[in-house]
């Protein structure tokens, strides 16, 4: 039977699955796969500083994830490409974060817990944070859906229709920042990118229009969370990585099915 902590883990996982589906689709469409990872790395500095001043890690992670999102959106396209800036800031923030942690005397923290997350240790407060974040980000995406979509096709087309693509990009990166911050405890920084990209990539095989792809990505995520948690309970494996393994399995199966279908047509 499912224990209390398993139910909390499930509710947290579903919240993350629902919000990472639309974000993940945009990340894949806009070829920003590296962005989730970079934001997550940057958030580690926030985690370290939060621990230093003994506040909830969510606050620090959120602040640094959003700083990162803002810096890269503002600076990209001037002297450096987005890619380069992400590389500069994600690694620097991560390094500074680790150095800051080493200065914390008397505090022994297990940073690995934040790298890989611990979905089984989710508290009711964490659930509130995750679901609030999820609802805010989903609202943001629903509100900006059309301009976000248009600016994905072509920046000038977006300008000509009266939407500033830079602003839309900022909305998207802030959404990513919030998602990273709320999910740090659940799947950890290293696995966030996987939850963003793999379900969206898998869903591509099922969709003929963008909304359908978002919906399919959400379904893939939810199935992965459900099976992954159950599997980790039965086989006593780490839950975060198990969820990602299930997602990968779905990705591979859908691609194989799609290839076979194309061959037989």
């Amino acid at each position, binding site marked *: 039977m499912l224990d209390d902590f398993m139910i909390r883990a499930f509710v947290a996982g579903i919240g993350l699955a629902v919000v990472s589906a639309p974000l993940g689709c945009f990340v*894949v*469409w*806009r*070829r920003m796969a590296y962005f989730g990872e970079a934001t997550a790395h940057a958030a580690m500095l926030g985690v370290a500083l939060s621990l230093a001043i003994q506040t909830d890690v969510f606050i620090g992670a959120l602040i640094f994830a959003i700083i990162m999102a803002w810096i890269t959106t503002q600076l990209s396209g*001037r*002297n450096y490409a987005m890619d380069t800036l992400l590389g500069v800031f994600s690694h620097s923030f991560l390094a500074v974060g680790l150095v800051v942690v080493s200065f914390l005397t008397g505090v022994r923290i297990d940073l690995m817990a934040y790298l890989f997350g611990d979905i089984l240790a989710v508290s009711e407060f964490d659930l509130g944070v995750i679901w609030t974040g999820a609802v805010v980000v989903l609202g943001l995406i629903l509100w900006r859906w*059309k301009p976000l*979509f*248009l600016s*994905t*096709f*072509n*920046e*000038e*087309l977006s*300008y*000509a*229709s*009266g939407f500033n693509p830079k602003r839309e990009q900022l909305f998207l990166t802030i959404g990513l920042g919030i998602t990273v911050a709320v999910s740090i405890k659940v799947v950890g920084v290293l696995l966030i990118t996987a939850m963003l990209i793999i379900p*969206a*990539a898998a869903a*591509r095989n099922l*969709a*003929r*229009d*963008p909304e*359908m*792809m978002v919906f399919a990505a959400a379904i893939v995520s939810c199935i992965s969370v459900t099976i992954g948690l159950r599997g980790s309970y039965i086989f006593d494996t780490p839950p975060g990585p198990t969820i990602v393994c299930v997602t990968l399995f779905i990705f591979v199966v859908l691609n194989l099915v799609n290839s076979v279908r194309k061959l037989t047509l």
Partner: protein
Amino acid sequence: MNLITIDDLSISYGGVTALKNVSLTINSGEIVTIVGPNGSGKTSLLKAIIGAVTPVAGEIQIKSGLKVGYVPQRLNLDPTLPISVGRFMRLTEKITKKMCAVALEKAGLPKLMGKQMSQLSGGQLQRVLLARALLGSPQVLVLDEATQGLDQPGAANFYKQIEKLREETGCAVLMISHDLHVVMSASDRVICLNGHICCSGTPQSVVATPEYQELFGTGTDGALALYRHSHDHEHASPTSNSEAIS
């Protein structure tokens, strides 16, 4: 009457000047073509008109309520993005499927509604982009090298379609083009750009100017001349050469 009036426009990126003291007007119903070598500021000029670039000096006046149809050079179409032609067409304009089908049929693309955007050929994509821009019944059509990726007959067809459009709807057309010899016959006015306006006027008069010949050769080589002569050329003072056209 003037739809777009550009007065003494200058654009620079991080201190590097892309355009200097450009003045021009677009009148209703005319076809204006901008030619110039790579890096001459053609795209910057279009970007300024649609509001994608803020000029460092000068002014762009756009007639209030002017409907601009924009045809981009290409789309960042990632193959992972599933969208049908019909959906793409209806992204910005609130129109029915029926109207969309009619527009596609007029563009010579019947039965393409359900096809995925990523499966279109270069020529089909250009015509879809043009058809989309026309859905809003624009008074000015702005095209950024819209025939890139088309072969010569394809490009010639495309320009014929533009000319026909102007006759039918009376909309003005502002376009950038590389297809010099093709574009010349279709344009009312040609503006030769190289960081500033080198020369401008009717196609025949522009081709005859020394500035144009220095940039593009004598024109006997057609479009290829552009690539052989795409070096920057010197002027004593850029400002004195830019002229206001009315």
